[in-house]
């Protein structure tokens, strides 16, 4: 997919572009807010990565301007700031996700891909399907190969998130943020335990495991 990187730190932007290119994405770089605005208006992008603090026009202003002009491209804010308030202002300005520097690269890729995916599945589906796994969002039931799987409410939310991002890596931090809505890193492997419980429910007794562990990144649900 096509990604616009608006970041004034050349070196960081280059590293980001290289990494994203290796993951199979095409990147365009802009080194300040004004340039970023022009690039965003000129081209079609799947995702924009926007640094919050930049010369000429800061990231928040840039995104506000784009949103006013009706541009709905998903935006991932990057910031050296990380207070709750900063995240909230970023999201209020029209950002879709927020990542605090320094970050693990796997985290960045996972989030960028998650944002792009969210846009693809724009239509409201009442049933999610990944391989032979089926989730009915209204009946709140999950079946695999026609067999009902009994899930706790949180497990259901966790699986829903994984199914919406099937085929992509999702990090532990993403799960904690999106499923539990906590914005901190626990020192213990709490998330791993929840995922392994979920895994035992959806994979045990079936010949092919769906919930994969991605080394150095997190997890992935494969069809």
């Amino acid at each position: 997919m096509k990604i616009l990187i608006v970041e004034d730190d050349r070196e960081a932007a280059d590293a980001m572009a290289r990494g994203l290119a290796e993951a199979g994405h095409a990147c365009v770089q802009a080194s300040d807010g004004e340039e970023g605005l022009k690039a965003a208006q000129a081209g079609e992008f799947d995702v924009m990565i926007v640094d919050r603090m930049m010369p000429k026009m800061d990231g928040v202003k840039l995104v506000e301007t784009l949103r006013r002009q009706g541009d709905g491209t998903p935006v991932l804010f990057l910031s050296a700031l990380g207070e709750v308030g900063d995240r909230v202002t970023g999201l209020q300005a029209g950002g879709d996700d927020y990542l605090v520097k320094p970050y693990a690269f796997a985290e960045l890729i996972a989030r960028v891909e998650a944002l792009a995916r969210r846009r693809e599945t724009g239509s409201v589906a009442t049933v999610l399907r990944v391989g032979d796994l089926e989730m009915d969002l209204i009946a709140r039931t999950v079946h695999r190969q026609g067999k009902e799987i009994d899930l706790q409410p949180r497990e259901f939310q966790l699986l829903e998130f994984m199914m919406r991002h099937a085929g992509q890596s999702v990090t532990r931090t993403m799960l904690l943020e999106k499923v539990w809505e906590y914005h901190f890193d626990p020192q213990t492997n709490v998330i791993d335990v929840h995922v392994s419980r979920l895994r035992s429910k959806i994979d045990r007794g079936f010949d092919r495991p769906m919930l994969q562990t991605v080394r150095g990144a997190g997890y992935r649900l494969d069809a």
Partner: protein
Amino acid sequence: MRLPRILRTAPFRLTLLFLALFASVAFALLAYIYVATAGEATRRTDREIQQEMRSLVAAYDRAGLDAVNQSLIERAASERPFLYLLMSKDAKRISGSIEESPVDQFGGKPTWTSFSITDQTPHGRIIKHPARGLQERLSGGEILFVGADVGEDEAYVFSVVRALWGAGLLVIVLGLCGGVLMSRNVTRSMAGLTEVLEAVRGGDLAARAPVRGARDEFDDLAQALNEMLDRLERSMAGHRHAGDAIAHDLRSPLTRLRARLEAAYLDVEAGKGDPTHALAQALEDTDGVLKTFVTVLAIARLQAAGAAPDPVLFDPGELAADICELYEPLCEEKGVEFAAELSKGLQTRGNKEFLAQAIANVLDNAVKYTPSGGAIMLRVRRRSSGEVEFSVTDTGPGVPEADRGRVVERFVRLENSRNQPGAGLGLSLVAAVAEAHRGRLELDEGPGKVGESGPGLRVALILPRAA
């Protein structure tokens, strides 16, 4: 030219201001007294002199110089308090009760003058009386002077006014002395504070202002200054310690990381070995470094803000229930029994995000240190004081009483926990969260020793009652 220091102080300037004010009021008062009394006496005297002058002039016009002379002789005998002097055209004395006119310059027009009469008492003392006089040229060219003692009243008023002037001068002199004294007093009181400030500017954060126990505003100021310095010193010490600790805690993983990368690089360069494992480990190390970094930032931010950001009113039981849900499977997996006792319907105010993180940190520690077969209990309750208490009790090894204060400090990890992962920042963050909420952190012994395990640890985060 620079004034001496003592004359530049605020109290001295205030004294000057008050003296100036006092002087103006005194002057206005004197002027009023003068106009009301002495002025009136002078005017009366002037009227009498004028009357006398008119009757003498009338006598002159009617019967000439001799008639005036005759009148003067008669009047001199009748004890009238007037002074007379009749002079020829060229100002030579013809007759009268005084030798020469007190009018210095006489142009021909009627001229008023104020002068004084010297008198001698029977005891030989010389007394001066204030007097007024009028000099006129008669129609024949002769000059006539009529004067009069302004009387005892005015003399009295004059002496009072003189005394008041003297007193005013005395007040000003005393006022200036008082100003200097006051100024010295204040300067002395300020000197302690100034000294402390200079010392602090010079880098000595241990300097403290003396509190004299007078309970005045200087003591209040000294106390406030000392409290501020206490806080500053703690914070500086915290930062310095954090700097050292960050260097210490980040240096070893960074060194390890570098060594791993270097070894992998050399292996790849020599064409032997697969660097995948080394790289994966390097990534893991990096994540550890980032986690430490994020926690250090959170603590620094809380301490810098001095207060919890974005406080909201919320139910602490619900907050804890969500965290229980997150941690329960982890405990179960470790073979640790998990229980929660959460009071319902409580209200408290704070930053939910930071409080959730604080409780999660305490639970992280409990899970880390409680061996399989142990138990962890999370409790939320309202104390009778109205405070809200979150507490986590475990059956791990606990913390010796002597070390309980220390484990809250940044980066402190007890010797026996060196082999556990974590940067030792968990409880420091909890303490920072408690402090930012004006609450506190309490560490106690857990349920006691049971067989091999125990005595356990009880960590309580206590928030003040919601206002």
